């Protein structure tokens, strides 16, 4: 098994939350009728999430002062592309926050959302290396998109006017349903893979962390929305807690290909 990688857990979850927040903010302001909501505090929150995530990511490095050099290998290293993508996204979000009146300029909103989604893709490519057969595929991208949609929509609810709450609640509910299906199905699919992928699946299915993440981050929030027909303020907090648990599981439970040297692959 691997390590918990807390700095990376914090960096990935917070930066993906910011991507979701900005993308949903762009849609809510410019593609739906009605009041924009509290846009300035929303973009400030996205900027703070990104800055906190970037600071956390430094703790992952053996030599944090070398972090600026991480954009040196754009030609082939997804990590360099990710560093650049997240950097540009953070800059756009800060400009959006500083220039916002009651709305952020439409072009800037959609540009920031697009750059954020591209940066999220780069992050996903960074975390799908050959060394982890269960993750050396499209799944990290799906997981990270779900984080952006679920936690992003959850956080967006704090900045949304009452008129547009049904829209945000719908986005969150649909994302949670998709997330529940994906997270319940994927570890069982891994069981049909080779030895290492199968062991990853078994680690997930036998891990209390995985099941806690399903219940805390997906089932309870879904039931709360279904029973109350609205979005209570505590629900996004649970969704975030579930994503953090899920991301710890992502790093902790995936088995490295080299773990089975000398055995059947």
């Amino acid at each position, binding site marked *: 098994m691997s390590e918990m990688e807390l700095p990376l857990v914090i960096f990935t979850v917070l930066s993906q939350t910011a991507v979701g927040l900005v993308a949903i903010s762009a849609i809510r302001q410019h593609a739906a009728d009605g009041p924009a909501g509290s846009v300035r505090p929303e973009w400030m929150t996205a900027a703070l999430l990104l800055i906190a995530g970037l600071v956390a990511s430094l703790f992952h490095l053996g*030599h944090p002062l070398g972090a600026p*050099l991480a954009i040196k290998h754009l030609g*082939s290293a997804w990590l360099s592309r990710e560093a650049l993508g997240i950097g540009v996204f953070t800059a756009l979000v800060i400009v959006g926050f500083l220039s916002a009146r009651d709305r952020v300029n439409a072009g800037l909103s959609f540009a920031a959302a697009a750059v954020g989604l591209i940066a999220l893709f780069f992050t996903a490519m960074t975390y799908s*290396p050959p060394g982890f057969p269960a993750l050396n595929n499209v799944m990290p991208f799906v997981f990270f998109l779900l984080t952006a949609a679920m936690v992003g929509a959850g956080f967006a609810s704090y900045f949304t006017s009452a008129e547009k709450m049904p829209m945000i609640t719908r986005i969150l509910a649909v994302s949670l349903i998709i997330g529940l299906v994906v997270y319940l199905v994927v570890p069982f699919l891994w069981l049909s893979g080779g030895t290492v992928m199968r062991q990853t699946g078994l680690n997930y299915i036998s891990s209390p962390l995985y099941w806690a993440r399903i219940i805390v981050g997906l089932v309870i929030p879904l039931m709360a929305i279904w029973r109350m027909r609205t979005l209570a303020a505590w629900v996004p907090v649970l969704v975030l807690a579930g994503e953090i648990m899920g991301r710890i599981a992502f790093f902790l439970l995936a088995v490295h290909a080299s773990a089975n040297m000398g055995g*059947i692959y």
Partner: protein
Amino acid sequence: MKKQLAFYIDAKRCIGCFTCAMACKNQYHQESGVIWRDVYELKEEIYPHRERAFYSLACNHCENPTCLNVCPVVAYYKREADGVVVHEQDKCIGCGNCIRSCPYGAPRYNPVLKRAEKCSFCWQRLDDDRKPACVLSCPTDALQIVDLAEFDEANAVQYPAGFPRYPSLNPSVRFRLPAMPKMIRRKL
């Protein structure tokens, strides 16, 4: 094909004595737990005999090294002259990306220097016309160095059972499979 040095692992000859791994340790004095070359026993599901079989493994100096491709600070380079993949530790910022990425587990984290490191193929020795320390030390000649541009051993295998198959990396390594032991049974 350009010159590409590779380890030839003759599992028919290897007796699992760990001398190669010890020679590596002797040469480079890695921190405790940081292993560049290790000897792996084949599991019973592959080699179900009382007699045992082993692969001595290190970095495979791949044709398309993922360690090099994913390193954000370009701390790796592949030598034109012989295909050896070199890690320049002073450039490394210790992000661990190569360690996660290499399916052969070759790059390891040095917790004291807080940087990655891996088998260098003893390139300084190569440049001095000497064999790598591990190859030199093997008492049964089970570990050898070959040039894949010229290597022509009909029975050699790139991906034997017990070794992960990654054609996209094209690891520069070849194996001779272990011999099946001769079973002598008393007639009942």
